[in-house]
């Protein structure tokens, strides 16, 4: 299956891009994030982030399906 992934803030800096399409097996968002974290050296753990799937904030145990739009969102404080 294919999903569209968006990175915000420091995740975008650490990944080096703002969005990508991924081919993967069905899995929870938490498992997906942990794989990406070790692959790209993300410094933030799950509990420092929020996750949205198809424009809705959801929990890390949410199972990702084909065609989903997934966004990882760290808190930002700049003003």
């Amino acid at each position, binding site marked *: 299956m294919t999903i569209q992934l968006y990175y915000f803030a420091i995740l975008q800096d650490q990944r080096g891009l703002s969005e990508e399409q991924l081919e993967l097996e069905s899995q929870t968002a938490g498992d997906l994030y942990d794989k990406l974290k070790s692959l790209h050296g993300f410094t933030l753990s799950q509990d420092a982030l*929020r996750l949205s799937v198809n424009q809705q904030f959801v929990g890390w145990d949410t199972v990702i399906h084909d065609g989903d739009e997934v966004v990882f969102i760290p808190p930002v*404080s700049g*003003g």
Partner: protein
Amino acid sequence: MSELSHDELERYQRHLSLPQFGEAAQVKLKEARVLVIGAGGLGCPALQYLAAAGVGTLGVMDFDTVDRSNLQRQILFNEADVGKIKAEVAAARLRKMNPSIEVLSIAERLNVENAIELFGNFDVIVDGSDNFITRYLVNDACVLAEKPLIYGAIYTFQGQVSVFNFKGGPTYRCLFAEPPDPKDALSCSEIGVVGVLPGLIGTLQATETIKVITGVGEPLSGSLLMWDVLTMKQQMIRFSRNPVASAVTELKEIDYACEVENETSGPLEIEVAEFCDWIADGRPLQVLDVREDWERAMARIDSVHIPLGEFVNGTADPFSAGLKTDVPTVVYCASGVRSLRAADILMNNHEFHSVWSLSGGINAWAQSGELVIFS
């Protein structure tokens, strides 16, 4: 007889001729009291548009003075204002823009003692602050004082906007229940930001403020708008109220420095005075600057240089830079936030034995009257 004066009818013509707006909405603006926290990148454009729109009473809260590095984005200020109190300069400029409104300058730091009483005097609170401690304080005080909160925050080329605590809607804590770990929370003075970005986000905050006051349109309650100006892509993400996270019973001090010191494995902080004593005593020390090249070019303490980014992406090589794991190490940056992070990495990834982060960074060092090397 209109509730607006002749001058006001003339000034607000383009509002009055909007069918959804009209005189009723303009009178609501005139009667509204809005407090803007922070006259910085977000606060300046928000204040300008709220003043121009005719918000009857505007509070400008900022304890800081204008710095030359603010002028790239904080558009209420000019070169002659450097060193002056932001709240006063901003208020004076807004009164000139629109003499028919009242502008209050509040040159104080928001804290757990003054927040609730202050918020009680206003109808809507706009958060233009630049750090997590203030953002959580603003949120919690809005919950306790029952005021809608117009939220905006920025990071490099990306911004977020939402409306919290509006008619029983979700709060900031429904998005992010607790402040991030201090080492994950770099402030905007250290991170770059494209100057026009807070202009866009602050202007959206002014828009949401006007919608909340007048009842025109649908405020962003329960939606987080995220905008990446590099791609111009926007995401509108829905979220709902979390009764547990949003429940606030009292205001609590959040002290980042203490939290870090209490962790036994984390780096310690050292005050400027104690650091000076160590140097005066001739203690064996190595000093590391983790700021960027351009910051180091302005002023520095005699030190080895490795930017924080190299620690974060894993390319830092402290040994070839001349550092040794068994020599006490003091790490510094501009204000003491980045240095905490680098000190943590030095201890945990590079196995340095004793590492301190200079509290307040080179800013505190310079303020204490210590010698700074200018290149």
